[in-house]
């Protein structure tokens, strides 16, 4: 199979332009992260360093978890919109009569969600780290800056968003109501978060090798999800809107 980068690029650029000019998406993408950065920072600042052991770790864990909810939620908003939005504007019909393959179309759609998600998530995580370094208690800062924690965040951010993206796209090819698709996607994007919860709360010992192992598993799942969604992709159903 020969993929056409030109076609993928065409859809991707189109999509990013469209997002940038969609007021709903711009507002959501700028407000949502604010909520998810305000809460953990507030938590850490009020964290009493005198409490010890597991409780202390739990609080840190919660804050870091907040950072990973973002890459799960942003895709559910964008991805749910990406297929349904096309269908509503009637753009799907002309697009699907061009020589684009289902795989190309879907990977372009996924990238269009992935890129803003990663940019926003990493950016917010950077701000979070900066705030911690400057303002938080040194013991809190030292814990956050542990190598494992940072690595977990960096590796899991794209993997979790990958999962959300594919479930979001899969759901939106079946459901024609944007709101419902978004809500379903949020639900469906939670399972991978559970793993991270377990690690952040030290229930699963967060060793480097475990994190990498899980990352590989998630990566495989993401790749399979792409294949799977491709087989679900059915021009007729998308066009006629019947199930």
């Amino acid at each position, binding site marked *: 199979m020969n993929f056409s980068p*030109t*076609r993928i690029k*065409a859809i991707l*650029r*189109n999509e990013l*332009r469209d997002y940038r000019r969609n007021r709903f998406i711009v507002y959501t993408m700028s407000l949502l992260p604010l909520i998810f950065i305000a809460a953990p920072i507030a938590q850490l600042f009020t964290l009493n360093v005198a409490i010890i052991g597991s409780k202390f770790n739990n609080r840190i864990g919660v804050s870091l978890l907040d950072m990973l909810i973002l890459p799960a939620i942003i895709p559910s908003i964008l991805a749910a919109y990406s297929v349904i939005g096309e269908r509503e504007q009637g753009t799907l019909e*002309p697009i699907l*009569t*061009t020589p684009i393959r289902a795989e190309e179309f879907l990977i372009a759609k996924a990238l269009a969600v992935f890129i803003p998600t990663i940019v926003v998530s990493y950016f917010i995580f950077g701000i979070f780290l900066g705030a911690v370094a400057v303002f938080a208690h040194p013991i809190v800062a030292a814990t956050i800056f542990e190598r494992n924690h940072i690595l977990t965040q960096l590796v899991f951010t794209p993997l979790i968003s990958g999962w959300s993206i594919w479930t979001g796209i899969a759901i939106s090819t079946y459901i024609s109501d944007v709101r419902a698709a978004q809500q379903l996607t949020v639900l469906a994007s939670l399972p991978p978060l559970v793993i991270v919860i377990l690690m952040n709360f030290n229930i699963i010992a967060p060793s480097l090798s475990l994190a990498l192992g899980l990352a590989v598993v998630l990566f495989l799942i993401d790749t399979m999800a792409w294949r799977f969604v491709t087989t679900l992709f059915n021009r007729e159903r998308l066009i006629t809107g019947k199930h």
Partner: protein
Amino acid sequence: MVEDLTKSFGERVAYKDVSFEVGYGEVFGFLGPNGAGKTTTVRTLSTLIKPTSGQATIAGITLGSDSDLLIRERIAIMPESPGLYSRLTVSENLECFAGLYELKDVKNRIDKVLKSVNLADRKNDLCGSLSKGLRQRVALARALLSDPEILFLDEPTSGLDPVATRDVHDLLMALRERGVTIFLTTHRLEEAEKLCHRVAILNTTLKLIGSPAELREQLFSRNLEIKTGSQIIEPERIFTDISGIQSWEQSVSGSYIVNVSDPDVVAPWIVRALVGAGIDVLAIGETRHSLEDVYLELINEDVEAKQR
């Protein structure tokens, strides 16, 4: 070329046993009322939906999942609703499609097609800000971008005001002159009559195919209307004596409507016969059937058939 194509959605039949052939460079019209199956046919032929049964060859390639991609490279479609990204500009919309067809020299091509639909000056307008007529023209430009071998147009003027409709007609006439192969659907007779080389009348099944003139002749023989200075005393005798007259009747206004095979031959005979019988012929002329009569006749037959 299409053979016995049928598509049903579950129990509901969208169209049935449709067969026809469209020649290279031909403008072929698919005429039918709402719900006749026009859009579904276009979607089937443009590889979007699969036929329930039957076969079709499009641009030389047989319809079927393996070859759909090849067909898509050779066709372009202008759907019923223009389907433009409203938050993107006219040229951004076209740019995306140029990429999907992997076209070279994109800027020039876009300028060229926009010029051909008289939209060169609206290049940087957001599509959402355009009127319906202009959007339809952008959609046409987009369909022309890849120089398709077959252009599918689904009701290109539905919902347009008369001026916008005429603009689109002019553009399509220009394409017809250039020899572009066009498959066009419409529920408007005068549109099919004006634009198409041949027309097929569809109402779930195909009713008739032919040039607009052929369709008229096929269904109706032609009529002569004769106004006389006085009542014909024995019309029976006069009219039955002339060969080529199939039937006749007197209209409410008092003139005679005579059904003939060839008016050019029969009209002089009628005049001679009437004058010979001492009757003044005030006027004689052919009353033309428009395609509308043909069309309504066919559609009505269907309605009656359904009521039975």
